[in-house]
């Protein structure tokens, strides 16, 4: 029992994540050396490359030290939340990230509400009406959803609802909550739809499987209301695969957010990453990638914890997670 207690499990997982995080940080740090040409020059950015400035850069980033020493110095700074400065305008990377983060979080939450709020009911509906016209329609939506990248959906939504019908603003992020929701509705739907296909596919497949199980037939034979069977028994079990896929869904949302922010010209973390990549602003890239990768590692742990709460057998190692 002690071994299977929840805090012990969480702690074990967090400790296990440390080597992974270190490996990721090493990869992120190596980006400086991955860029073609002299690292000092790529860190110099658009500034004038005189021998003095180059020497200053070498000094500042300890470029004359061996790679591993450079890495350790950098890591020591990262641990105390010092991600360096942008090579463009020398703004602090951490403050740039803080500034852009709220929009991306807002967009991500809104987008996932769209994906789950529409995707799960559609998947359930399709499973109940398996083989019917409704089912085929939902499956078609799912295929389109899986196939349509967020930027393509974004352009369509932007044209139809922004330009043609004029219901939604075509740029800007809005001020205040209501205005923000209104401004971010099209981006959030573009984002949500790109992930919804996956949600529909998984929900439908696992609902169909659950509906064929003995306990459903038994509950029906006992005369339980159909709605009760769905909500309290079937859906609960059917959503476990959706939780399993949460990792895929979140990665999909993050990628989608990058594309959507660029499509709609929104100043979030994703568009910051893209502009940093195009300008080869290494410190900014390193900061964003480090944060997103750590977020994903922690989220995987969170999903597994959630999982053990839904299905305690996993914690005791009786079934494979």
């Amino acid at each position, binding site marked *: 029992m002690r071994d299977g207690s929840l805090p012990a499990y969480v702690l074990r997982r967090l400790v296990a994540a440390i080597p992974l995080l270190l490996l990721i940080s090493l990869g992120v740090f190596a980006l400086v050396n991955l860029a073609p040409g002299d690292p000092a020059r790529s860190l110099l950015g658009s500034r004038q490359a005189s021998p003095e400035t180059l020497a200053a850069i070498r000094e500042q980033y300890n470029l004359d030290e061996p790679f591993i020493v450079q890495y350790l110095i950098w890591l020591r700074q990262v641990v105390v939340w010092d991600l360096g400065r942008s090579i463009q305008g020398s703004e602090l990377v951490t403050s740039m990230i803080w500034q852009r983060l709220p929009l991306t979080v807002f967009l991500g939450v809104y987008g996932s509400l769209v994906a789950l709020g529409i995707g799960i009911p559609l998947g359930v509906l399709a499973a109940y009406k398996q083989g019917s016209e409704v089912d085929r329609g939902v499956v078609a939506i799912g295929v389109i959803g899986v196939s349509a990248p967020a930027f393509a959906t974004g352009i369509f939504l932007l044209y139809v609802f922004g330009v043609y019908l004029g219901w939604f603003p075509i740029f800007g992020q809005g001020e205040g909550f209501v205005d923000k929701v209104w401004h971010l509705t099209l981006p959030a739907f573009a984002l949500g739809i790109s992930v919804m296909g996956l949600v529909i596919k998984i929900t439908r497949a696992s609902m169909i499987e659950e509906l064929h199980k003995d306990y459903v037939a038994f509950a029906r034979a006992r005369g339980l209301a159909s709605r009760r069977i769905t909500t309290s028994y079937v859906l609960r079990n059917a959503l476990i695969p959706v939780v399993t896929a949460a990792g895929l869904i979140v990665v999909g949302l993050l990628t989608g957010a990058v594309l959507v922010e660029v499509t709609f010209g929104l100043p979030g973390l994703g568009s910051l990453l893209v502009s940093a990549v195009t300008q080869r602003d290494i410190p900014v890239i390193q900061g964003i990638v480090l944060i997103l*990768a750590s977020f994903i590692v922690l989220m995987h742990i969170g999903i597994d914890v959630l999982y053990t709460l839904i299905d305690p057998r996993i914690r005791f190692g009786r079934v494979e997670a």
Partner: protein
Amino acid sequence: MKLEEAPASAAIPSAIGEASLLRRKRTPLTVWIAMVFVAIVIVCAAFGRQIAPYPPNQQDLLLGDTSPSAEHWAGTDLLGRDVLSRTIVGARTALVGPAVVAAGAFAIATLLGLMAGYLGGKADSVVMRWVDFMFALPGPLIAIVIVGVVGGGFWTAVAVLVVLFTAPDTRIVRSAVLEQRPLPYIEAARTLGISRRRIMFRHIFPNILPLIAAYVVLDFAFALVSLAGLSFLGLGVPPGTADWGRMLFENRTILLTNPMAALLPAAAIVFTAASINVLGDWTYERMSAR
């Protein structure tokens, strides 16, 4: 409750209907439509320049961006280039890159998956540890960063995607190999003293090939969308290339004057990927129904 019944099949791709119902039924209409559409795209990829009404890079700066007309069915972009012609010619990069990604990823994944699944032991744990590591990473974001920082455009993008796609594919091949391993024919082959390499490539491989084929098709669709995404961010093909993702990137600013310049390539991406997904799901169901 039966714990032994692990829901391993719960997350498999499933569309068009259940495999058991479909087995002896005729090919669904959606699959026919998808086949025809993919055939059209392939023809465009092969003979795009001959079919296109205008050369894809012929500029007409005085004309600029115009909405669809009798001369230009889908209008022109900012540089006065014919949108329809560019979309037709763009089919080539849309197909070549994903083909290399899907084939390359599965060639490596088959090798690794066979080794991990059949040899087991150390080979298995090394390969699977690597796969788990790759799963912990946000793949598409890694692609954006590496292609952007390293440079090299299209072929760097293709190479990065091959590496990223190899991990999930390896997992698929390995689990298929694990299903084959306990079967009598493998045991018989082993009793006969056939070498491990021969068992892996001559005996197991042909049996998992249909499954691999279905996943290659699904991979292809995903690679198409991913590469288009990179081009859309200005990271894939070089500027000026007639490429669907790139066209979207360049023409999203003229949505008010000629919406077709962005909507046509967007539709091309969505419908090509959707058609290929339909074909992939269909192949998968036919293969798993056997």
